[in-house]
């Protein structure tokens, strides 16, 4: 098994696990973590793509690496926003769930 296929499968597993958790878990914090898991899978796939593109005598295709950095920043920012909203929700209601009370 080539290294690209191995990492590709890992990324598929990460995305699958994350999607499963995002859909099945009702707690928002778990959903946020699941989103980060999917994100890791996608960023790993960027790595695989960069590795595959390294045929022309370079150590790796630099474009996916540049994209991953932007992607990481965006994922970090979205996680921060989500956690901030969740904390505020907890302060307001004393509970951190999305279920309505009625």
């Amino acid at each position: 098994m080539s290294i690209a296929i191995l990492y590709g499968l890992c990324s598929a597993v990460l995305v699958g696990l994350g999607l499963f958790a995002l859909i099945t878990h009702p707690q928002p914090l778990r959903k946020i973590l699941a989103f980060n898991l999917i994100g890791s899978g996608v960023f790993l796939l960027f790595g695989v793509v960069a590795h595959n593109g390294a045929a022309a005598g370079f150590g790796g295709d630099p474009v996916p690496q540049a994209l991953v950095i932007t992607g990481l920043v965006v994922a970090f920012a979205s996680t921060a926003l989500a956690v901030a909203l969740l904390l505020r929700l907890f302060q307001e209601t004393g509970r951190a769930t999305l279920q309505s009370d009625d």
Partner: protein
Amino acid sequence: MIEPLLMPGSATAGGFLLVLAVVLPVLGVLLSLALGGRHAERIALILMPAGLAVAGATTAAVWRTRAVLQYFVGGWYPPLGVAFRADGLSAVMMLVTGLLICGIGLFARVQFASPEQGEGRAPFAFWTLLLAIWGGLNAVFLGGDLFNLYVALELLTFAAVPLVSLDGRAETIKAALRYLLFALLGSILYLLGAVLFYGAYGALAIVILSGRVRAEPVAWAAIALMTAGLLAKAALYPFHLWLPPAHAGAPAPASAILSGLVVKAPFFLVVRLWFDVMPGQPQQAAAQILGTLGAAAILFGSVVALRQARLKLLIAYSTVAQIGYLFLMFPLAVKPVTGHPWSTFAWTGGVVQAISHAVAKAAMFLAAGLIAEALGHDRIARLAGIGRALPVTVLAFGLGGLSLMGLPPSGGFVAKAMLLSAAVSEGQWWWAVVVLTGGLLAAGYVFLVLARSLADPVEPLRLSATISPGRQAVVLALALCAVLLGFVPLRPLELLQIGRPV
């Protein structure tokens, strides 16, 4: 894989306009953050006419030259460089966005007036986020490659989510969090599709991809993932769960932006993907699925809207239904052979629907905001007498409703008539039935509200706030725009076709 530097056309003369369209709002956000407090409102009010002028100039340039405007940041060409590209569709969407933002901004001056002393948090957040949404929307409309479009979509989401929870009540924070979770799922699926495209074809620029994409499993997987992600952001049935609480809970000017403009951005990207990235690919089966979801959205959204007790929730569910119409264009416009006359007709109908719904829905949400402010509540059952107290506002609501129903002479009529004739001419009559049923149901929920508002109140109505004629005039002007769209002759619709792959 390192590509030779491809040059799909050079930068055009008006290219700087495209940079201005994105940079002006972003500059406004940065200045607001730096200066803080009361300056945010002033900066936004100064930038609004400037941004509208840029959008107008872009549209005029595209119309005059009959060609795509392009700009390459730093002189770097795709596949490495960042390209801004304005075809007819982008220009029109930019113009509509500029008009709506100006209208909504004028309306919001009273509601989000900055206090004389100190810093009002809600006004500061509103004006800054308004500019951020504008910048994000323009970046979505002008982005030339899939990754920049991802960043633009995220900018838009980060600006839109806090607008939902401006008042800080627990239920609106809940709605904002639910919206954010849906949006995050959507954007990560979109990104997964984009990396698949890059891995398979070594490019992210739409111009380059459209020449390389072949009908094979990796392209289908990529476009399916991206479409699914965008549907979650566009709130197409069954991904609509987040929309009603978010759009109904936000303050009226914020609802108008979210419902009118923000949900159109993911739709715009689906159109880009299906018609620009993969032109000429036979995807009829997949397009039928999108159409079916759209039909389900129309029927479900309209029926649920009929059963709502609160005016803003009714309008929010009507948005769910109207988003369905947008996706009816796919089974009618996606053809194994592009350039089919009826397919162009259906494509135009879908785009006109996006524009006319944006204007009409903004007017209706603003009208509902005024009604709720005057009455102190927005229960439909207790609207009696408001028609006499705020005649102009109720008239604006009705005119907006005209467009939702698709009655002539409104923009909604033109859009629905185009979809209808495309459906009949292509022999896909079942979509025509859905369009007509949806119009009937829309008439039901609009008349429900109008009948209650025009009824005589049992006891004399006491308004909890007086509404200035100026704000009512803004709402009426937007509603009139929605109606006037129906008078736009077909010739300017050619503008939409500029830059489309043939």
